[in-house]
């Protein structure tokens, strides 16, 4: 290594380490997560491409000009769920493979920050996915314009995304510490995601009936909200233990 020169003055730390607040830590982690994704483009493009490809396959496999009601809602939610699993599987890979876990555990920070930051990261990935997938779904599979259904659809997607982000983060943290992480993530996650798919699909099904679209089913939106809350609390309580040796 030629051309390396020692610094002219001895190195002294300018200030000691200090405890960092939860939300500042979340901010630092979130920033890092988004930067890594922007550099690698490993998750969001794969998720979006998977969703669009699946809609194309459905478009030809069903051999129908359009779908509506339960079928449409089911296709949308199942496709989004499987696309989300691609992101869930990648969520902690860089941390596990490149020592990010250890570095984080050495720092004097609240460990819950990692759970919050990872869940927010996954949530952001899901939002971008849906910005691509929902228009593609409308174009390829829906007969009627999506406009009137949009507010109800957004409410259902928001509640469903929250649940997927929370449960996906919990499951990904468990799976990444095992050798069979690519298999274990979906295996652990799918049973927990099923209620979200059921709730999400039932909530938007009335919106997607072409003849007489109705309001989203409030009962299912409420169910989704409660499910999110319960799993949010469980994940928040468990996450510290998952990071422990």
């Amino acid at each position: 290594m030629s051309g390396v020169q020692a610094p002219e003055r001895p190195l002294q730390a300018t200030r000691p380490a200090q405890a960092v607040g939860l939300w500042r830590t979340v901010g630092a982690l979130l920033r890092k997560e988004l930067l890594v994704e922007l550099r690698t483009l490993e998750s969001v493009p794969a998720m979006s491409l998977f969703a669009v490809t699946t809609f194309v396959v459905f478009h030809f496999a069903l051999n129908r000009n359009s779908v509506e009601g339960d079928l449409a809602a089911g296709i949308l939610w199942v496709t989004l769920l499987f696309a989300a699993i691609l992101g869930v599987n990648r969520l902690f890979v860089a941390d596990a493979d490149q020592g990010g876990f250890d570095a984080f555990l050495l720092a004097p920070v609240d460990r819950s920050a990692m759970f919050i930051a990872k869940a927010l990261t996954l949530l952001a990935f899901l939002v971008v996915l849906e910005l691509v997938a929902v228009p593609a779904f409308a174009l390829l599979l829906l007969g009627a314009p999506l406009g009137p259904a949009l507010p109800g659809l957004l409410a259902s997607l928001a509640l469903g995304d929250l649940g997927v982000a929370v449960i996906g983060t919990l499951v990904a943290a468990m799976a990444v510490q095992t050798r069979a992480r690519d298999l274990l993530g979906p295996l652990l996650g799918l049973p927990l995601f099923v209620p979200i798919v059921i709730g999400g699909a039932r909530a938007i099904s009335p919106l997607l009936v072409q003849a007489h679209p109705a309001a989203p089913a409030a009962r299912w939106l409420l169910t989704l909200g409660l499910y999110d809350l319960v799993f949010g609390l469980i994940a928040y309580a468990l996450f510290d233990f998952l990071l422990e040796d």
Partner: protein
Amino acid sequence: MSAAALEVEGLSRHYGERDALSDVSLSLAAGQTLVVFGPNGAGKTTLLRVLATLLRPHAGSVRVLGASLPGEAWAVRGRVGLLGHEPLLYRELTARENLRFHARLYGIGEERVRELLDAVAMTGRASEPLRTLSRGMVQRVAVARAVLHDPELLLLDEPHSNLDPAAIELVAPLIGAGAGTDPRRTRVICSHDPTGGLAEADVVLGLRAGRPALLRAAVDVDHDEIAELYR
């Protein structure tokens, strides 16, 4: 006699059926340097990871900087710097981005990041992703990461691996004896280099198959005893 920075009594740690560390006891005063020798798989890295609070001891008692592990591990975090086999850096981020990220976790300002990039002669390459840098350059950034928060206890696992002689000289002010703001900085170094290791050590620990085979003041240890650990 200074207060003990490390007090380890009967430490054991296993992975499944295999004992990685067995009945290790030692004491190290603040400001001293412990150098750990031993062949591959002797338990050196496991010892460092226990002291860093990353692994729980399975038996025995461990006190690091006055805090009992694992119960008071929270009191140690932020006071320990670890330079292990892995650089603990993200390959897709640049050296500057990596150090900024760690600085934020420790509540440290940008000035320290600039200072350390300069210290490890990486300012000119600080905007390139780590995956494009040589191993030696990544190791220099890893050294900067380990001392970013001026830790009271430095845990160094073969710190000179991948570094050429010029780079070893370069990082000496950061991880050498007397580095840091606190003249009593304590160090634990895993090494395979008897000459360099003995020159740094106040106390020498030799491990063989997870068990202590040698524990003595460095002045009382000769090269042959260290060579014997590897036979």
